[in-house]
């Protein structure tokens, strides 16, 4: 499977454009349950609604110097800042031209707390700068998605470092996106499956895959998903996505998947 993915790096690159949209009120139960008193008396009444924020970049993958449109929206926020851009209105667009892969991190603060969102613009070194004649790499034109397609578009696999079950910083946006999707689809249950590369013991790798799946489950639970909606299975190195002895393949196998749980038992 990963061997297929290797040949389609362009598409993978687009997948890297992961947006984050989770109010920290959801991530931190304390904030949600005991919101801080509003300090900004400009708001009529005390609005304790937690802010929300989204940010996206189009296209998400460019050659150095290409133009990218950053678009963001927020709700229930009055102080919005985007890293590398500065203070911005509650919603809008900006054109940027990064020379290297850049994460644009949006922080929205309101009387109900704060929200963060981020988007990554991947800059491919050595790629030819786009001319005006070449259409930028964009995702396929929007079509109505089936529920399964919508799930797949929002809930992506999480990849891990060698011998590690810690969620990488750069995969936090994907995880947050999955969490917000699951928050908004409370009837969906999921199964998180942990996988490992072929190196090392079968036995240890099942335990390591369990910890990887548990890390993803913990992140989803911390983002407000009920633990009862999440089942965990480790496949260790028993069902690899590919079997080449290369770092690229090993990376494909060090992952956790989040799938719809159609298992009726238990």
């Amino acid at each position: 499977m990963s061997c297929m993915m290797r040949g389609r790096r362009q598409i993978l690159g687009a997948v890297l454009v992961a947006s984050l949209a989770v109010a920290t009120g959801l991530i931190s139960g304390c904030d949600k349950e005991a919101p801080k008193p509003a300090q900004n008396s400009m708001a009529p009444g005390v609005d304790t609604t937690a802010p929300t924020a989204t940010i996206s970049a189009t296209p998400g993958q460019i050659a150095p110097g290409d133009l990218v449109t950053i678009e963001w929206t927020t709700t229930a926020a009055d102080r919005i800042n985007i890293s590398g851009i500065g203070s911005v209105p509650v919603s809008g667009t900006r054109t940027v031209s990064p020379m290297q892969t850049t994460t644009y991190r949006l922080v929205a603060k309101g009387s109900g707390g704060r929200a963060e969102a981020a988007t990554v613009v991947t800059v491919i070194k050595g790629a030819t700068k786009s001319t005006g004649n070449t259409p930028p790499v964009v995702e396929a034109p929007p079509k109505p998605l089936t529920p399964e397609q919508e799930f797949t578009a929002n809930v992506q696999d999480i990849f891990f470092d060698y011998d590690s079950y810690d969620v990488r910083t750069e995969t936090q946006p994907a995880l947050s996106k999955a969490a917000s999707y699951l928050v908004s689809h409370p009837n969906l249950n999921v199964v998180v499956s942990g996988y490992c590369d072929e190196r090392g013991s079968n036995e240890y790798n099942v335990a390591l895959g369990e910890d990887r799946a548990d890390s993803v489950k913990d992140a989803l639970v911390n983002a407000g998903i009920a633990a009862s909606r999440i089942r965990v299975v480790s496949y260790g190195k028993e069902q690899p996505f590919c079997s080449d002895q290369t770092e690229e393949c090993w990376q494909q196998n060090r992952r956790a998947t989040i799938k719809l749980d159609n298992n009726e038992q238990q």
Partner: protein
Amino acid sequence: MNVHHSLTKIFTLSSFALFVCLLVPQLRAQDEVHAMGGTNADRVRIAAASFKAMNSDAQTTALKATFDSTFYNDLSVAGIFDMVSRSMTPQESPGNPTEIKVATWSAAPASAAMVAFGNIGVTGGKLTVNGWLFDTRNDANPQVVNKTYNEAASQDAVRKVAHQFADEIIYRLGGGINGVAETKIYFVGSRTGAKEIWAMDYDGQNAHQITNLGTVSLSPRISPDNNELAFASLSKQGWAIRIFSFELNRYLSFPTGTNGSSNLTPAWSADNKSLAFSSSRSGDPEIWVSDSNGGKAERLTNIKGPDVAPTWNPRSNSQLAWVSGRTGLPQIYVMDADGTNVQRMTDGGYAISPSWSPNGLFLTFSWNRKYGPGAPGGQDIYVMDIATKKWIQLTHGSGSNDFPSWAPDGRHIVFERSLDGKADIWSMLADGTDQRQLTHDGHSFMPNWSWK
């Protein structure tokens, strides 16, 4: 390179018995040699005569051929004999004490101190084997062993008889330690496509499938009484510990083995009463222990990170070794059976799959001391003296080696070796010598040597 490396060289050149002698002075000298084998100079020189066929029919001829090769192999791999090679073995087949000319066997080139001989026949479907062991240096009273075996004639039966007679000799000449020729090795085989549990005789013969679950089953562990087989099996619900009873020919109820998404690596205590295993029921794979029927499950470890692959100290039954990733790469640890006195044994690298020696003094495990991205290193089998943490490396530069399992005689270790992408079961003496490949069909993994 380093001290360990030069130690390893020295130990490779000299004998493992010397290593034990240097490092474990509390061991009695007799134990050292008998527990670990020794150089050929220390060993009893023994010859196995071709047994005399009492009938000339095809069945007897075929059974005699199997007996001779099985018996010769049993003595050769026992680890305590200097075997007279076939080319130096006298060509005669003395069928009983009156037919043997002892001087023929004690003279060069055989120069045997001991000679085993006898006869084999089939009458009315019944196999009869008479075997003797003679001490060639005791003219007055040369007979050491005389045994008679009767079985329904079959290839399986004649192999069993050969193993029994070999074990009788090994017991007599090996310091009263039982031989392992009648023991079994349980392992994971994928020759049907799914990873099922298989069993075979200790010499690789008679491989047969035990489970037929059509999924992934790992980590077979036979109970000390040989009656029950525990292992871990994958389903859509995760990993469950399953227990198959050979007595009842069915799976036993073991509800604690399905609690949580990953229940792995069962390990029987030597008294057959407890099972240790890894379970993620608390949200993290930890070591648990329960009664062998699943009651009284108790958690022994409580630190984040993979904890897996427990093995009991079979001598004391009061300690466990296991693998923990609590500090990063997996390391071998030892603790008391109540979870206290945790001690880290390995100082780095990637250390997995411990098995405790029958005498309680050593651990064998798989270790890659250079493991890490960009440092391919070798996954090799090691033995560590628990009291001093001194170790020796048993395998060197031959494939990737894992899952060592100590034989009940303490002299042998069985392990998985993956060579050019093909995994097979190998055995060796506990000093790393006499490595022999036991399986050839498909892939074979994770051997577990029976307790008797």
